[in-house]
């Protein structure tokens, strides 16, 4: 299917970068002139809009963090007059004070444009029926997906969350072809449908899922695609950026970040230094065309890699990989950044051990040590010590090659590791004691 906005989406990379630079320059001048927060920030950092002479000069600008938005509660950072706002969304305050995001008419417009391009890249368009099972309300998921799907001429079924049996009936009766929801909710729907005697694969017209708002894995994608007989696409965004904004295309090889709307960088979470394509680091985003709540070099806290190449679909905009973890979860072992999610990902590919694990970090002399406890799988349990040592060595080897740091593995009895999420139990760091 043709791109929604081919002139922009297939724009040669150098032209796109010139456009990004022009937009960045305008943004920085505007904020320096009219926004107290950003002017103070730039002055503190000793940078003036005139210092932005190339696109790479974005690196001269100071970073922005979640705490800045919280400190600015409710609307102190806003750059638009109150009567220009057409909407508020409010992010949940589970980790502190809530964050208020205001939208001008133009902000809603670019958000909608972003998702119109994204949904089109997933092969959706006029004739599709899109069930939006993200929450409607203060959360951005429901309304964001709703506007994007309407824009491309699809029919929206705004079910929001809950009442799963009814959702499945409507999916069948109204010939829903695509659903936007969290991957875990879709799995739940699949289970509920089976209990109702409905096979999503055979008894519905569903062929695509636009899934996000929580971390998920390639393994989960395979499971969803095989079981439900659909294509599952990753969607990315946060309320600070406007909401969900970017998705994979039908190639399923990374999430396209529309360069005329957002300037994405990957930086070292510790030093803030820029990292190159393929290097794992923290996603940092500047929204180039946002009016009410401007966002410059916002450190989202999500860990991913950037792919700078042109996608096989023909779109020239850079792509990011699946979100691999949160900066808050990062461990530094002998100077190497290690994420518990990498450990989990590696273990899931080794059938000899279970997927539960515990990391114990300690210090021997001046050297950090990392121990990973794993449970022996039933099939791998051998009466012979040598066989078990082979399993242990194999897991050590696989972890070492994926983490780039030496790891000791301890085989433990099944059921002895913590089952619940949460860093406190999965990671024990004894270095601080």
């Amino acid at each position, binding site marked *: 299917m043709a791109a929604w906005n081919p002139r922009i989406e297939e724009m040669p990379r150098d032209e796109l970068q010139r456009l990004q630079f022009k937009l960045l320059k305008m943004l920085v001048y505007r904020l320096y002139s009219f926004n107290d927060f950003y002017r103070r920030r730039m002055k503190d950092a000793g940078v003036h809009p005139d210092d932005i002479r190339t696109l790479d000069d974005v690196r001269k600008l100071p970073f922005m963090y979640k705490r800045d938005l919280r400190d600015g509660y409710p609307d102190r950072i806003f750059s638009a007059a109150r009567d220009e706002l057409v909407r508020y969304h409010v992010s949940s305050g589970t980790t502190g004070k809530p964050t208020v995001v205001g939208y001008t008419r133009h902000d809603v417009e670019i958000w909608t444009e972003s998702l119109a391009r994204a949904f089109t890249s997933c092969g959706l368009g006029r004739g599709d029926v899109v069930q939006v099972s993200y929450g409607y309300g203060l959360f951005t998921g429901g309304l964001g997906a709703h506007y994007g799907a309407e824009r491309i001429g699809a029919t929206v079924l705004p079910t929001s969350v809950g009442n799963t049996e009814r959702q499945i009936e409507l999916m069948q009766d109204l010939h829903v072809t695509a659903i936007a929801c969290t991957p875990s909710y879709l799995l739940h729907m699949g289970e509920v449908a089976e209990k109702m005697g409905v096979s999503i694969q055979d008894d519905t017209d569903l062929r695509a899922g636009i899934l996000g708002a929580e971390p998920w894995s390639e393994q989960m994608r395979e499971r969803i695609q095989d079981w439900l007989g659909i294509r599952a696409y990753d969607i990315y965004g946060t309320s600070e950026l406007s909401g969900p904004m970017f998705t994979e295309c039908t190639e399923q090889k990374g999430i396209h970040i529309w360069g005329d709307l957002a300037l994405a960088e990957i930086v070292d979470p510790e030093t803030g230094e820029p990292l190159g394509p393929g290097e794992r680091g923290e996603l940092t985003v500047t929204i180039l065309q946002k009016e009410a709540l401007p966002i410059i070099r916002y450190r989202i806290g999500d860990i991913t890699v950037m792919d700078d190449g042109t996608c096989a679909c023909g779109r020239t905009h850079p792509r990011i990989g699946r979100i691999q973890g949160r900066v808050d979860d990062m461990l530094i072992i002998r100077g190497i950044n290690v994420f518990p999610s990498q450990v989990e990902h590696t273990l899931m590919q080794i059938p000899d051990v279970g997927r539960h694990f515990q990391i114990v970090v300690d210090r021997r002399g001046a050297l950090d040590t990392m121990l990973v406890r794993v449970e*022996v799988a039933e099939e791998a349990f051998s009466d012979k*010590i040598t066989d078990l040592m082979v399993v242990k060595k194999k897991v050590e080897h696989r972890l070492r090659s994926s983490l780039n740091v030496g790891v000791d593995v301890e*085989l*433990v*009895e*099944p059921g*002895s590791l913590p089952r619940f999420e949460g860093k406190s139990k999965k990671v024990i760091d004894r270095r601080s004691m």
Partner: protein
Amino acid sequence: MENPYIIKQISIFSENRPGRLAAIAEALKGAEINIFAFSIAEADGFGVVRALVDRPEEAYRALTDLGFRVSFTEVVGVKMRDEPGGLSEIASILGDADINIEYAYAYSGRDAAVLILRVDQVEDAIRQILERGGELLEASRFR
């Protein structure tokens, strides 16, 4: 047909820390299972407890219900003369026949000492031992 001399040994994965053997023994006691012989093989941070019990299937169930990782292993039990040279006799039979002993442990029973063997070719080992006049424990005692 099952070889009447192949004995089902239970092997239990265990972490190498205090109380684990007690937990295993407690489970077997709870199921009223008698242990004829056992050994512990230890490695780096973990071990394998191997045991000959009177009712291996029930022992397996009792332990797996408690979350233990358990498997069955085929072993043979050879009666040894409880005097100098007893072990040497058995070991040379297997050595001569080029049968490798993966591990072994022994216990001193009521009527004789018994060597429990895990070998790479169990049927061969049984034939060789019987041909050379050795005496084997019958598996019927352990089920």
